[in-house]
């Protein structure tokens, strides 16, 4: 049974559909990457999965259980974590407090998970008593991912985790995504840096105009000349 | 490109059934009051309702057109009332024939001079004075000169109070006071608007609530200017008074004056609403960011509408004070002069002038009638309580009964916001195409 199985998802804001039938499935230990041009509905798909957007048609299953249109806090309980692209930390809370908020529904996790997060993201340990608003962009991204991991999700949704980061940090984030995945967390992320992202992807989904254009393994999509021509900039 | 045309084409003409029914209901209510309470009383009620309609129109353009919430209508009403009193009340010879006007003028001169000096001090940095030093100089000068001016005023005003009572009026035609009242209210509105309109909308509500209490406190305590709690009356009318033509006719004449005013304001407002200026105002209210992106000067437009609303409140307040023939600073209450107007606007339909007028008249009738009704109910309860349980009612039952109205107004506000957020006659927003 796939970890996440979205079938023929339609949805949008205020009666206007942005998603016009998207299919997406990843297994428990996989990294899925959504790429595509601006306005293709990549982030919208992520929001639909996390219950931030009304799904009009189709279904989304988490380990076979339908979860579409559940509120976000229910989804967190069911083992899903979401890292928004922007405003993804609590700026006036310290790094440690940010992480604790991630485990709000599972207070028992805090002690054990804090150590694991500091292991994943060593720079955070030194800054744990600093307000997250004072950190650099890359470190904030780590806080954001750490926060989402605190609830021990089985599926982590990342919305453009490398947006606005320098290439140095970008590589670091990709490395950490792999590390998190190797610890047994399924990952579904939206990325602008399509080539690098597909390079670490088990599954790749190329969206355009709210529909799947290509769906394959990351490596196969990278090798496909048509994908390369239309979506990867040559 | 003629956008106005597109506007009208887009809405099919229909029979204004809702409007007709609601206004017919008001008419029936008015006739009912006439039958029950007699023409003199009922005409008075109509005049007051008309004055309130002017206030409500002022608030509906602020809240309905532009989304600005003014929580201090009372202050602007009091300013208008004060000007009506000051300009129309007969001249006080005790004051003008003494040397006091000169002294008061001197104090005013000191005040102007002090303001100029302080403003000058804030510009000292242009002469090469360091900015920090300039600020210190300006603040110290401001404090010292303030004390000097205040003391000069205290001296003069104490003299006025002890020797002449108060400065009296100017003996000018009533209309002058109404116009100046509007202007003064607009001026205060300009000041508040300049401070608050660029900020969160909550701040405007807080600031207007504050300025209203300050204006009231000023009038209440400035015996030299307003006779304070002693009140000033009788104020002259713009039409022949009851002494000359009898209550009903005099009030009917007054009513025709206010009705003409409402008609003129209504006409001008609808013109403005459909003009590019009105469209811009609504564009700003509905989507501030895109309006700003289109290059509209948001804060200037907002200031214009806020000041315009305050002017109307000043005029309405002046008309109300003249009609009551009395200026009583303590008679200005947030409930009667702010929240009652608010209920009229949100119940009638914010942004819809016709709805606002309907709301004003309907709510005022209910308001006036609820006083006797509340007392009656209260007495019923008391008699019942005494008879059935031997319960001894508190002595100040009358004033307590009136508090029930406070509760009802509050409840009405929350209920309308929840169940009829657009009022009974909603603003008709026209869409292109």
């Amino acid at each position, binding site marked *: 049974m796939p970890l996440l199985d979205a079938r023929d998802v339609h949805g949008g804001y205020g009666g206007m559909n942005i998603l016009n039938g998207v299919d997406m499935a990843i297994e428990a230990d996989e990294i899925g990457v959504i790429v595509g041009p601006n306005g293709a509905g990549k982030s919208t798909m992520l929001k639909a999965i996390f219950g931030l957007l009304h799904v009009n048609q189709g279904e989304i299953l988490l380990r076979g259980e339908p979860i579409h249109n559940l509120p976000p806090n229910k989804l967190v*309980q069911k083992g899903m974590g979401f890292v928004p692209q922007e405003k993804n930390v609590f700026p*006036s809370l310290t790094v440690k407090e940010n992480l604790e908020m991630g485990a709000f529904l599972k207070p028992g996790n805090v002690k054990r998970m804090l150590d694991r997060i500091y292991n994943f993201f060593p720079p955070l340990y030194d800054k744990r008593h600093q307000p997250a608003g004072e950190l650099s962009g890359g470190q904030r991204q780590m806080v954001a991912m750490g926060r989402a991991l605190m609830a021990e999700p089985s599926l982590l949704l990342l919305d453009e985790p490398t947006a606005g980061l320098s290439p140095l940090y970008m590589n670091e984030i990709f490395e950490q995504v792999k590390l998190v995945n190797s610890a047994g967390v399924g990952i579904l992320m939206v990325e602008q840096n399509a080539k690098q992202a597909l390079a670490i992807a088990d599954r790749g989904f190329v969206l355009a105009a709210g529909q799947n254009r290509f769906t394959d393994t990351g490596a196969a999509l990278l090798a496909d000349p048509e994908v390369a021509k239309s979506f990867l900039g040559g | 490109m003629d956008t106005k045309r597109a506007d009208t084409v887009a809405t099919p003409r229909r029979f204004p059934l809702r409007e007709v029914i609601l206004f017919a209901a008001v008419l029936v209510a008015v006739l009912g009051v006439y039958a029950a309470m007699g023409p003199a009383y009922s005409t008075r009620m109509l005049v007051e309702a008309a004055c309130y309609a002017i206030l409500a129109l002022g608030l509906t353009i602020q809240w309905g057109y532009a989304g600005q919430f003014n929580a201090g209508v009372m202050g602007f009403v009091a300013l208008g009332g004060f000007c009506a009193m000051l300009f129309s009340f007969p001249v006080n010879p005790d004051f003008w024939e003494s040397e006091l006007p000169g002294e008061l003028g001197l104090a005013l001169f000191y005040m102007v001079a002090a303001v100029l000096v302080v403003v000058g001090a804030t510009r000292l940095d242009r002469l090469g004075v360091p900015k920090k030093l300039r600020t210190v100089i300006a603040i110290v000068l401001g404090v010292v000169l303030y004390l000097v001016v205040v003391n000069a005023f205290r001296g003069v005003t104490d003299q006025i109070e002890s020797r002449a009572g108060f400065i009296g009026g100017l003996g000018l035609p009533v209309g002058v006071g109404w116009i100046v009242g509007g202007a003064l209210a607009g001026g205060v509105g300009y000041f508040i608007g300049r401070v*608050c309109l660029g900020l969160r*909308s909550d701040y405007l509500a807080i600031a207007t609530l*504050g300025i209203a209490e300050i204006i009231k406190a000023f009038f209440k305590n400035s015996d030299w200017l307003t006779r304070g709690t002693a009140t000033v009356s009788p104020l002259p009318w713009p039409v022949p008074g009851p002494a000359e033509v009898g209550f009903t006719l005099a009030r009917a004449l007054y009513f025709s004056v206010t009705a003409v005013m409402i008609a003129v304001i209504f006409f001008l407002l609808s013109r403005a609403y459909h003009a590019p200026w009105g469209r811009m105002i609504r564009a700003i209210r509905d989507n501030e960011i895109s309006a700003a992106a289109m290059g509209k000067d948001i804060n200037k437009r907002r200031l214009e509408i806020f000041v315009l609303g305050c002017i109307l409140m000043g005029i309405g307040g002046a008309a109300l004070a003249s009609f009551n023939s009395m200026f009583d600073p303590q008679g200005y209450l947030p409930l009667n002069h702010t929240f009652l107007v608010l209920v009229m606007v949100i119940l009638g339909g914010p942004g819809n002038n016709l709805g606002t007028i309907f709301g004003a008249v309907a709510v005022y009738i209910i308001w006036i009638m609820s006083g006797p009704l509340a007392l009656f109910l209260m007495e019923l309860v008391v008699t019942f309580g005494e008879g059935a349980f031997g319960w001894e009612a508190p002595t100040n039952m009358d004033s307590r009964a009136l*508090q029930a109205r406070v509760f009802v107004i509050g409840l009405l506000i929350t209920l309308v916001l929840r169940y009829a957020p657009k009022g009974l006659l909603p603003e008709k927003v026209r869409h292109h195409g």
Partner: protein
Amino acid sequence: MNELVFFINNVVIAGSVSGSIYAIGAVGVTLIFSIMRFAHFAHGDMMTFGAFMVLLLTTAFPGAGAAFGVPAALVLLPLAMVLTALLAVSIDKAFYKPLRAHGVKPIVMVIGSLGVTLMLQGLIRLFAGTSGQSLYVDDRKEIFRLALPFEGVRAPVVITEPQLYLFVITLLAVVGLHLFLNRSRLGKAMRAMSDNPDLAQASGINTNTIVAVTWVIAGGLAAIAGTLLSLDVTFKPDLSFFLLLPIFAAAIVGGVGHPYGAVAGGFVVGFAETLAVFNWSVMLRPFRDSLPEWLTQSGNLAFVGTEYKIVVPFFILVVILVWRPTGIFKGKVI
């Protein structure tokens, strides 16, 4: 030296008293602002309601304080806090929550809270009447006179029993709030929600719980402030509009959404008020001989008369809105 005592009595103590009241009120307003993003105009009446509950309870159990050696009102205050917190939560359920669910603009919430303010005012005055009443039903208000050990000082420093309670309770409330916000899970979640409500929801924080907790705290604090104010003077049912302006000014001065800023703002406003109505000519008396005559001759050198006290918070509000709308500590909610 007598002038110094006069200054202590009329400025230091009086300023701390009103500063404490404003601070507690402003903390509630600022917490509500940071969680629900609107200016809660019914706060003054929530304070009155808390004091009224104490009045009712003290009238019912006038002897409650004797066992502890404190006024009955103080013993019954926790109960009144619970009642006020309940009131706050149920008002939210009945009136604010439906508006929030409709996704209205914050300013509509403000109007709603004005409606609530009128309802509370009407109810309280219906039952309490409009005149002032003492909360010292069966107890005696102690007044402490501390003579200063200096030569030539005749006047004592005067401080009353409720003022002492006020200072102690304010301190306790601020420390308690600090611990709650920084140590407890719910307190941190509250700060998180104030920082970023969407992310708080995405983290699994139940925003309804946080809203309820906010009302409980704000209501409890309002009961404290209202009761202590009424203990110091008398219980007056119609204070609310005069409390609102200084409290909002304090919250904005401190930076909206910033609890410690609100405390500081409360004392800024409180002291500004007392300094403004203080008659400075008293302080000039010792230097009579070396000052120009026109300055010493005037008997009244107060900046504003007590009847215009309300001008002071308004002036502060205008200055802060013009000069630095985010407040001195840079508020989070702008």
